[in-house]
């Protein structure tokens, strides 16, 4: 089986999307799947990169979209890729193949804020004649900073969910409901995420030597 992991974060390999997508890829490889990556934001900057991704899309048995929630849906370049893929596949492809799976995370604590984006991916799969293998969604994406071991509980719940997902996808199955539920479980109490998140913005401002106040209004009128 050939899988393509499309990383939909513009931050590429330093993103939460990469952290989750590459871990899923490891699991797929352990089950004998050949995995390739596509960095959507980067590849779409050139015609060649776009054509490469579209070709990979069509030659895969499984496509995984690993992306951050942007304004309640998919980042614009990923949306663009899906538009192009649907146009092209409408003309050429075998129905039901490849299958599409999604790993999405968002900055707010509630995983359900990703539901509309998942619906959009599923609708895309329908339009493009692809199979649908399901989605993992989690909130508190701001906590995913490169190392699972630094997460509460060593990130065990995420790793378990990704492990079960890899196993199921490699068999040609759907993402198990149990994996979805575990993945969506909050990493910490909501109040704590809000507290550390708000502190985090201040610390980043200090690190970046920001000279304006956090609530500045540069476009005046408001």
């Amino acid at each position: 089986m050939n899988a393509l992991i499309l990383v939909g974060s513009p931050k590429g390999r330093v993103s939460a999307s990469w952290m989750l997508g590459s871990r899923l890829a490891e699991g797929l490889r352990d089950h004998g799947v050949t995995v390739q990556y596509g960095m959507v934001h980067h590849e779409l900057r050139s015609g060649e990169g776009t054509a490469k991704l579209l070709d990979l899309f069509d030659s895969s048995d499984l496509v995984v979209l690993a992306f951050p929630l942007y304004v309640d849906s998919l980042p614009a370049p990923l949306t663009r890729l899906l538009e192009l893929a649907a146009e092209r596949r409408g003309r050429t492809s075998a129905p039901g193949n490849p299958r599409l799976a999604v790993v999405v995370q968002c900055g707010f604590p509630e995983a359900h804020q990703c539901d509309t984006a998942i619906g959009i991916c599923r609708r895309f799969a329908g339009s493009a004649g692809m199979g649908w293998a399901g989605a993992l969604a989690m909130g508190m994406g701001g906590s995913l900073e490169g190392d699972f071991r630094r997460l509460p509980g060593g990130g065990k719940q995420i790793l378990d969910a990704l492990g079960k997902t890899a196993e199921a996808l490699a068999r040609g199955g759907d993402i198990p409901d149990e994996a979805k539920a575990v993945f969506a479980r909050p990493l910490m109490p909501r109040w704590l995420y809000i507290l550390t998140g708000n502190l985090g913005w201040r610390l980043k401002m200090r690190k970046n030597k920001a000279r304006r106040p956090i609530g500045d209004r540069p476009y005046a009128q408001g």
Partner: protein
Amino acid sequence: MKALLLDGCREGDYLAMEAVLEMTAALAGRADDVEVVKLRELAISACTGCFGCWTRTPGECVLQDDAATVLRSYLGSDVVAYVTPVTFGGYSSQLKMMLDRCIPLLDPRFTIVGGEVHHLLRYRRYPKTVVLGTLPSPDAEAERLFASLVARNGFNFHRTFEAEVLVGVPDPPSARRCAERLLDRIGVTA
């Protein structure tokens, strides 16, 4: 009253272009000044996800392109209309490119809105917003997703965004009725 229309359609999409024309006419009947921004003609790069607009130059993106001009115009408007082909239940990539660049309008700090976490507002005043989507043929699932996406976008600005989907072949009278209905719903009067 000032109105801004963000045209998120592609050249050659006659249904969406009809929706733009009729929404422009509907706005012109109620506002003193209507600005139509054809997003496909502007240079707007994709958001790089750096959060510089919150932690480096709060309120302003670190990229220098046409998005800043659109944001100023957005804040200076009383009503904003997005027009877009409904794309798998979401926005066109053209419109989405601009919407991803709108996060400088918000303050990064978290707050609770309607029982969920969202961001604080940066400005005291934001325009009323309507979204007109187009679909060449009925698609209940895409329409449902679109309504839910627009409503969720409203929560981000602590307000209600209204949506309508125009279905079928280009037909100016029905597009106009759809646009007028939307403006009625947000209480935009002449």
